[in-house]
């Protein structure tokens, strides 16, 4: 059993938890994730490790409440326990000692982006970040990013913070201004990552993305998380979740991610969820 030591609401749809998980905390690296089950019958859901403390043996997760399992997780309080919490899973991000890197975080994607950007900052790399969200309330971790980045740009759908528009609008502006980046790390919804790559691919700018296909075991056993990268089949849970964005088949990813759309819906109704 894994104890929830802290729970915090970041906005109406996103929450943070600090969980006591010694085996995960002892060795995890930026880019890795965990899989948890919120109760004894629960689905196995993957979440990125947003932060960790080796001494206190804790791991921080930041999750968006989107469906049944994340709602169930959200019903837990400080002091409660999570029955299963396994990790770290996936390969650590391949962070290089570049001169300048641009991070792009869409919505809750800011959470998995943060440990990577912080590590780069610690390595002496200059980092800029673009954060995007529906509106001001949906921007998370802005203070944390501002503390380590040279510049943090914002884009909101309604213009309540930063530019009115998408993160890609800001990206275009930066590139048009002549800003140069050795690498771009984009994490967010698949549509966002696809749009980013749509801009960076013609310019041949190295772009790392973090894929989030539907997973079960997270150990390479089921093959459900397969993605096509550079024409090859990869298992996101063991070969990723980070991949070279210029090589990813995003349309296939999006299609596979929607495989259980109907069931997810009926599941929520069936169980009287919101």
């Amino acid at each position, binding site marked *: 059993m894994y104890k929830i030591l802290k729970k915090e609401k970041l906005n109406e749809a996103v929450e943070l938890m600090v969980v006591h998980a010694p085996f995960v905390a002892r060795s995890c690296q930026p880019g890795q994730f965990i899989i948890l089950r919120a109760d004894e019958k629960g689905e196995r859901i993957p979440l990125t490790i947003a932060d960790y403390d080796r001494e206190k043996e804790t791991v921080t997760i930041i999750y968006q409440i989107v469906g049944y399992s994340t709602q169930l997780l959200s019903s837990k309080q400080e002091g409660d326990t999570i029955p299963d919490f396994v990790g*770290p899973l996936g390969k650590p991000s391949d962070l290089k000692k570049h001169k300048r890197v641009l991070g792009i975080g869409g919505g809750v994607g800011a959470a998995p982006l943060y440990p990577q950007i912080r590590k780069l900052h610690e390595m002496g790399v200059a980092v800029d970040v673009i954060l995007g969200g529906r509106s001001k309330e949906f921007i998370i971790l802005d203070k944390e990013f501002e503390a380590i980045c040279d510049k943090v740009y914002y884009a909101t759908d309604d213009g309540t913070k930063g530019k009115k528009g998408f993160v890609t609008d800001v990206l275009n502006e930066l590139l048009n201004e002549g800003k140069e980046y050795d690498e771009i790390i984009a994490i967010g919804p698949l549509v966002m990552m696809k749009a980013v790559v749509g801009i960076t691919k013609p310019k041949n700018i190295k772009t790392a993305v973090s894929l989030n296909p539907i997973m079960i075991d997270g150990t390479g056993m089921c093959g459900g998380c397969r993605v096509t990268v550079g024409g090859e089949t990869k298992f996101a849970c063991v070969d990723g979740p980070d991949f070279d964005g210029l090589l990813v088949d995003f349309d296939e990813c999006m299609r596979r991610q929607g495989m259980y759309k109907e069931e997810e819906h009926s599941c929520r109704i069936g169980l009287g969820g919101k």
Partner: protein
Amino acid sequence: MPNMSLKKVTMPEQDPNVRNKNFNEVALGYTKEQAMEEATRCLNCKHKPCVSGCPVNVPIPEFIKEVAAGNFEKAYELITSENNLPAICGRVCPQENQCEGVCVRGIKGEPVGIGRLERFVADYHMQHAEKKSVQITKNGIKIAVVGGGPAGLTCAGDLAKLGYDVTIFEALHALGGVLMYGIPEFRLPKALVEKEIETIVDLGVKINKNVVVGRSITIDELFEEGYKAVFVGSGAGLPKFMGIEGESLNGVYAANEFLTRVNLMKAYDFPNNPTPVKVGKKVAVIGGGNVAMDAARTAKRLGAEEVYIIYRRGEEELPARKEEIHHAKEEGIIFKLLANPKKIHGENGWVKAIECVEMALGEPDESGRRRPVEVEGSNFIMDMDTVIIAIGQSPNPLIRQTTPGLDTHKWGGIIVEEETMHTSKQNVYAGGDVVTGAATVILAMGAGKKAAKAIHEKIQSTMNA
């Protein structure tokens, strides 16, 4: 005077047309009387060929004699002196190739129903015996076991009986390996697997679930933490794909994913259990082994109207157990033999049809089976909603990638010394599917036993030195 009936006492089964709609166990097991009657068919042979056919040397004639006399608890003790998981082996061992395959009674007529009797004894014990607390003197020596499948469980159980302080590290949230996530409920009820595992845990084995060795902790780190030996029983869980067009369409599953969703995550009881699975009206399962049979029979139970087994060789070559093929046919699974998939056709991103080519059997190949060759121009297309790929698994690369000094074959299997199961790395032992590639429960258990014995001998010899 032994019972000279040429046939085994029939074991009651659920009717095929009832059972192909539920997940309850197919074979219902012997009653006391049926078991005692079947036991009288054993000739109590002096040279015991059956025992040499059993990978863990269960004292077969001895236990059967006790069954015939109605001493079921005594029979249980005899079986469990060699076999920690009798309720499981009695159900899933390929007995026709092992103990029963060499039974003298099989020369003329059917062999003694050794598996059925083993199953009966184990089930009887579970229903009747009081839980006895075992007294073991602990020696305080720490041993780590990687993987909670049959190989790891057996190794852990044997070492715990000898007093070692054993910890199992298991990646999933449940122990049992393939017994939990692969073999379906209707063949091996999960409650029973849990009970068998409990008897091992009761020996004082510590369980660390949700730990992926290689990621959460490495084998070298286990030694740093004071473990004196490590047994690797991580299985062969990595599914193979065919590399044909259309394999990433929605509706294409690896058998592992399909079976895990249904068995481990209980998708058959969705939405009571929130993990979903998709089965359309028409399902194609590619492959001809036990895994393919399980996937096909599972799909049928989930409501598929037509379920096909597509296999590139002939009936004779099907690698699945005879009993499984027989059960699958009874349940209405359609066998499309001598057919090889070439492409999966899609529509709007979902499976629409499967295209196959007919095969003919040519000359025998290295494996002694006749090599299938494509019949040119014989391509045909069948409409499908779901395609399940069951063409084999190989060992997961994680452990070999994170354990320097551990030698493996090209195909991924860990290399061991036959006698001791010792690997190329000091004090690291391995056994089960991770060494042999996908094999059987009982071979995995046999390997776990062998390793336990070797670990014990090695530790004793270093202590006495």
